């Protein structure tokens, strides 16, 4: 930051002034003079010293400073003239208009300080992610209610139809065991305990038995269920797996090997 020394050895920084009024306010304060009785000659001298320096530094936008300089010089000259005292007229101080402007300007400088504080608060803005929020109010219950189970079937069937033969085989083979696993967990949601027989929907299908049995073994292995059989060849009872010790009146047939 560049500094100069003027005659009164007041230091000030260049470009600190928003305009000639700002500079004048500064000079008046520094000189600690009464604004209603500005020693114009002294202030003009300091003002011109600054201007001269600024001109040397090739600062832009000095025209307004020059206009003020001429105003100041005009006031100074008016003050040098003898005042014709006319008792009827009020004495018009040649400085009064300038003083009014300075006071008005100072008022706004103070307001600007207040505003600067407020503006500084907006240095940071905390913003929400503006992109479309993820709520699908339209993918609503009612929309789902318009879909029926046949839509599901049709959709699924067309998906299957588009799969390659290889994909279908892989895919189809899994369906049945998975289906039994699903049925089992569904039943276990509603009941504490279910019977193996409940997994069999179509009694005539051997595949049903095989898949159900494989599903049970799979679930046991994955610690989803526990199974018991109270008597030989009796129905297998299926319970949700719990880490607690099994009660003694049941014989565990947990089969880790599957």
């Amino acid at each position, binding site marked *: 930051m560049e500094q100069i020394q003027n005659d009164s050895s007041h230091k000030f920084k260049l470009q600190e002034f928003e305009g000639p009024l700002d500079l004048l306010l500064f000079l008046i304060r520094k000189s600690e003079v009464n604004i209603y009785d500005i020693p114009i000659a002294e202030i003009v001298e300091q003002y011109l010293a600054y201007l001269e320096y600024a001109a040397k530094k090739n600062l832009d936008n000095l025209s307004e400073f020059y206009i003020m300089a001429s105003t100041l010089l005009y006031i100074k000259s008016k003050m040098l003239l003898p005042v014709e005292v006319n008792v009827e007229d009020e004495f018009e101080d040649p400085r009064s208009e300038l003083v009014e402007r300075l006071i008005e300007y100072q008022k706004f400088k103070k307001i600007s300080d207040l505003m600067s504080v407020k503006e500084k608060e907006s240095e940071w803005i*905390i*913003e*929400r*992610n503006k*992109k*479309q*929020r*993820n*709520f*699908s*109010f*339209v*993918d*609503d*219950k009612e*929309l*789902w*209610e*318009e*879909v*029926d*189970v*046949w*839509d*599901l*079937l049709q*959709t*699924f*069937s067309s*998906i*299957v*139809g588009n*799969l390659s*033969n290889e*994909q*279908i*085989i892989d*895919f*189809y083979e*899994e*369906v049945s065991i*998975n*289906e039994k*696993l*699903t*049925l089992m*967990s*569904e*039943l276990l*949601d509603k009941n504490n305990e279910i019977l193996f027989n409940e997994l069999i*929907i179509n009694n005539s299908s051997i595949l049903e038995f095989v898949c159900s049995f494989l599903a049970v073994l799979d679930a046991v*292995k*994955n610690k*989803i269920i526990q199974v018991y059989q109270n008597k030989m060849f009796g129905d297998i009872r299926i319970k949700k797996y719990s880490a607690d010790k099994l009660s003694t009146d049941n014989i565990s047939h947990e089969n880790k090997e599957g």
Partner: protein
Amino acid sequence: MKLEKEEALIEAILFLESDPIDINTIIKITDLSKEVVSETIKNLREKYEDPSRGMDLTEIVGGYQLIPKEELWGYLKVRYGKKNENRLSRAAIETLSIIAYSQPITRGEVENIRGVSADGMIRLLLSRKLIREVGKKDIPGKPVTYGTTPDFLKLFKLNSISDLPKLEETDLKRFELNG
């Protein structure tokens, strides 16, 4: 523990996020311990359950999210719902049908069948409570498997998943022919 300030901070984070935010990200932002974050989320969630609160703190895949309570959706739909979309998206039905017919099924398997990412759709179906996590598949990585829920059965007026209409008539034939 009172955790007032922690609660305020995490509430502000949930407010600012528009997507689900996972607990590790919250830990990173807040510089709080996992225990404190979990505890605070639990407290917050309970507070949001109050009927005078407008959102639920929901846990869905990918993290936590504030979501306007469902009973208010009727009012909110007009202004905040996506317009020009009064039909369920094809993707949603497809994904649901695959999960319904092939459960338990992993996300990867759904993606294989549909050929596109299933992330968003699975999240949607989870939040609609039509599917849920049912276990983990016994393959490397132990991916989560999904299945349908009681709400799914209710919606499609099924007593049990075994009442889903079967493919047999049309596609089983094709399967047999080619099998």
